């Protein structure tokens, strides 16, 4: 690992200023992905600005009945929160579907959103990768891609976003709050992560010196009727082949409203607008759910081993 300086930020604006002043600086959250990438040589910051002691570690109810989740809230605390478990159970389940108990105790909400793909070529510095080293090519297209993207990928990158948590947040219309040198701004979570296009090195809409400070969830009554389900290659502690967060509002056998997002399919958590449109007003029967998934996957372009 390359040597780096370490600083502990005193407040949010100080953290942002430190990043702006040092081109090779990065924020340090729980470190569960960043420290690993530094050990692999994928990341080699000159300076780590530790943001884990900033006052972004609370979950608060909002005036409109939603939740305000500080970016420093540990994944385990998010999943254990009473309101998350009762009002947004798919979010608690999604967090609990990710990683291990040890990692969830360290990983933060902001860090979870900003974790990098687990594409094997990205993590192996001896291999070309457009995301890690733009312009070098994408060996995953013809190589090992059975866990990689089938929707929204490009000739430059077929990586997937690995988060489970972000899939549930996408389904629930979460908003990401960001602090930068010019002040605060907000981005809907579904626009926070990017599709790869011709710039797969950019995972998100975040600028280098911007800090995620919070995620908010709007009130959604039927989110209490939601689940997260994940298919993977072993029973636990593995990334998704595919996962789904779904909330359903059913009355008199008919789907009144629905929220669906998929994980493991794309470079970003995939909000399934086509499937939702197909289901609204449809009978709440297995056939309708199958048809809705087919409607969403019409745009899928699987590669050799992931169709």
């Amino acid at each position, binding site marked *: 690992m390359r*040597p780096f300086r*370490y600083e502990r930020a005193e407040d949010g604006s100080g953290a942002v200023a430190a990043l702006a002043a040092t081109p090779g600086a990065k924020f340090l959250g729980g470190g569960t992905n960043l*420290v*690993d990438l530094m050990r692999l040589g994928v990341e080699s910051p000159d300076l780590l600005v530790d943001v884990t002691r900033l006052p972004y570690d609370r979950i608060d109810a909002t005036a409109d009945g939603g939740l305000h989740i500080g970016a420093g809230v540990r994944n385990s605390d998010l*999943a254990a929160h009473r309101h998350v478990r*009762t009002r947004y*159970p798919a979010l608690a389940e999604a967090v609990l579907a990710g990683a291990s*108990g040890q990692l969830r105790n360290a990983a933060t909400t902001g860090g979870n959103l900003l974790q990098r793909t687990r594409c094997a070529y990205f993590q192996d510095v001896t291999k070309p990768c457009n995301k890690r080293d733009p312009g070098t090519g994408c060996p995953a297209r013809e190589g090992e891609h059975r866990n990689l993207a089938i929707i929204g990928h490009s000739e430059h990158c077929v990586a997937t976003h690995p988060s489970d948590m972000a899939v549930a947040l996408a389904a629930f219309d979460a908003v990401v709050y960001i602090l930068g040198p010019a002040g605060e701004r907000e981005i809907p979570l579904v626009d926070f992560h990017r599709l790869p296009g011709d710039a797969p090195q950019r995972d998100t809409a975040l600028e280098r010196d911007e800090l995620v400070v919070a995620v908010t969830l709007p009130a959604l009554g039927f989110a209490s009727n939601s689940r997260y389900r994940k298919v993977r290659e072993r029973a636990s502690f593995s990334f998704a082949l595919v996962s789904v967060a779904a909330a359903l509002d059913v009355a008199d056998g008919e789907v009144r409203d629905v929220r669906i997002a998929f994980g493991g399919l794309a470079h970003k958590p995939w909000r399934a607008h086509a499937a939702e449109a197909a289901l609204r007003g449809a009978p709440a029967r297995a056939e309708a759910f199958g048809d809705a998934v087919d409607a969403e996957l019409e745009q899928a372009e699987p590669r050799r081993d992931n169709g």
Partner: protein
Amino acid sequence: MAEYDTVTLNVNGDEYSLELDTRTSLLDLLREQLGLPGAKKGCDHGQCGACTVLVDGRRANACLALAVAHDGAEIVTIEGIAQNGALHPLQEAFVEHDAFQCGYCTPGQICSALGMLGEVEAGWASYVSHDVAAEPSLDANEIRERMSGNICRCGAYPNIVAAIEEVSS
């Protein structure tokens, strides 16, 4: 050139103030500088759990923890869980149930189980809990899911689950 920073830690009840290369993981600090080799280096990527220790009462992978980021933390390792010379009930149960073969993963398994039982005590659900809003009830299936961050390449899982189940009941 290496960069240094100072850190004060409490490890198993003892205070240490140290000047460290910023790259030092908590695991390497424990093993190489503090003479506590109980936490093991398996994968060094947070995937095997052999390095599990308790940080401020919570289980964590010491391999992915930068020591300088844990100033003021209280660390408990496998060397610190016996009390007054008597083995911890989890240690007793692992011996009783023959919950290991080579023993390399065992310190991490026991520290992880200790942290996990605290999580259940605090009412945390798991992915296999039928209802995440309900109080958890620990059974073998719950133990397997909650302990999935600890790999045992000898495959002593049935006896590890039995040992933890005995202590939890």
